[in-house]
């Protein structure tokens, strides 16, 4: 089990990256496309999480733990926090664009939109 777990998270991160890209390429609906972008973004969480993890270590919170207890990497967690905010804000911006483009053009299909724009 542990030997599988030593590489599985990396594989899952790559898998999600490729599925996210595939979804964007294939998408016929902007909202669907935005959600695929979210999946693409989440691949970076998985990668960062896997990188900073130490087997048997505790969370980097020393409230009720003596100092010096082996703890997982706090830096990747800080990066992930930033990453999550970025994800939420990008998604909000894109959703607003999708809503507005539907109100103006009556379609969410990227192909249709190109045609409408002429």
């Amino acid at each position: 089990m542990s030997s599988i777990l030593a590489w599985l998270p990396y594989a899952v991160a790559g898998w999600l990256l490729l599925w996210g890209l595939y979804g964007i390429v294939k998408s016929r609906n902007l909202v669907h496309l935005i959600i695929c972008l979210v999946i693409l973004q989440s691949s970076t969480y998985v990668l960062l999480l896997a990188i900073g993890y130490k087997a048997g270590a505790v969370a980097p919170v020393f409230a009720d733990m003596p100092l010096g207890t082996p703890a997982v990497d706090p830096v990747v967690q800080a990066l992930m926090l930033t990453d999550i905010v970025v994800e939420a804000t990008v998604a909000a911006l894109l959703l607003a664009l999708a809503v507005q483009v539907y109100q103006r053009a009556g379609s969410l299909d990227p192909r249709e939109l190109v045609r409408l724009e002429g």
Partner: protein
Amino acid sequence: MHLAPWTVALPLACAALLAALAEKIPRTVADLLALTVAAANTALCALLFRETRSGPVVYWFGGIRPRQGVSLGIDFAIDRIGAGLATLSAVLIFSALLFAARYFDKPQASFQALLLVFLAALCGFSLTGDLFDLFVFFELMSATAVGLCAYKSREVGPLQGAINFAVTNTAGAFITLTGIALLYARTGALNLSQISRMLAGRHDALVLVGFAFVCLGFLVKAAIVPFHFWLADAHASAPTPVCIIFSGAMVEAGLYAVARLHGALFATPLPGFRPALLALGAITCVVGAAMCYAQRHLKRLLAFSTIAHAGAILCGIALLTPEGYAGAALYVAGHGAIKAGLFLCVGMLLHRLHSVDELVLHGRGQGLPWLGALFAALGLLLAGTPPTAMFLGESMLHHALREHAVARLALAIASIVTAAAVLRACGRIFLGWGPREPDAPGGGESDEEPETVPARIPWSMWAAATLLLAGAIASGFLSRQQASKEAMRMLDPHAFATQVLDGAAPSNPEAATPEPLGPALWHSAGTAAGALALAGLTLGRKRLPGALRRACAGVWEPFASALRGLHTGEVGDQVAWLAFGAAILCGAMALG
């Protein structure tokens, strides 16, 4: 007190203030506040530029200095080229604000707030010495740019452009973040110098792929073929003041990041990196130039010329030599001011004549001789004629690329064809030359709602454009030898790391005396003549012998229509190209 943090803190604080007070203060006050802050930031950046004369300056945020050579905090590691880019950005934002003051009919506090955030992002991006912080400012730039790009949110075009921009740039950004994570896994560091030290010259697959991934997001931002599709859509639809920042600073910031990262991380060129970037740069020159020539929508025309010039800059960076870097840096300085000035001219045309379609505007600019003169002058400068830094940069690039004939040819094509396209538009609009053909194919997309009530061109627009022309000419006083010296510093990761991590004094390399400018003058005269000739031939093509005309059309038309066919404007295609380009880049590095 150190200046560096203020370049970011000042515009951000004022952006918050402007957003809070948006509806409470009169328009003039908001305008003045934003302009003052932009001017102050320009001064700050210029002072930083002066301060870095004798070598890079390092500023540690929170006073968290490295301990025993391990960096724990975030630093601004300010090299002179980065400070120069920040100065250029501040000047462009100032001109954009000045131009925009009388551009929109309604007060636009949120527009100004977004521009100020953009300024902070650009400054932070060019000054930071931390890999993840670079990503944060990169994303800040994107988040702001999307709002600015979709500013005219009633039309489908801007929304479409903003969506393409946001999706491709975000996809690129997260590939970049994947790369950052890979490098972090190997080195356990985010500070550039620390990473460089931990890598210690080891270039295995992890490092190569990690670095290629990191560069990918920046190449998307830099609109390098095949990652360039978003740029024309975004430029065609964004308000003109935004275009000048996209074209003059944002694209260049992406290229700067590639140059800086390679310089700060690796002492020797990564295998395969140089040929891969050179090929991408040369292709970008040609594709950008051809697409530029094929446009009649003036903003799109300028957007594609930016792509061509980005390719030229990338060719210089790709060499990974001091001369190439220095040439690219000077080129950026001149190009930023010139291209921004051209965009402002188009904005004034749109303001006065309500169109940005070259064919619709045929002859209608005859009552605007000054605008025409400015347009033509900037068009000629775009060909790389003296006395701007673009001329100096181009001469250095040509010398640096002397062993790469194909890249030189691409560079020449980029200069001649883009300048010819601008001059062609100039002759058509302001002199009424060439046949009248408003119904020619390729129209349709070019009708654009005027952004303003038609009126005389206000003085603030003239002031912004004149400022940029003056800036372009002033950039001609930059020293090539100084630039080479800075480029040598930029390419010396060891000296940089000892300065950042151990607090040593900056290195003081000896730059070679630059080549004499005599041949470059001839060269630029040739380029300008070529551009004028091509523009003249295009406008007067009806007078050419029929056989020659048909031969030219027979070569050009299939090529242009094939290229146009690839530019579908669909976001799915653009992301597919992104994946394909990423694979090519990684593949080239694997083989190299």
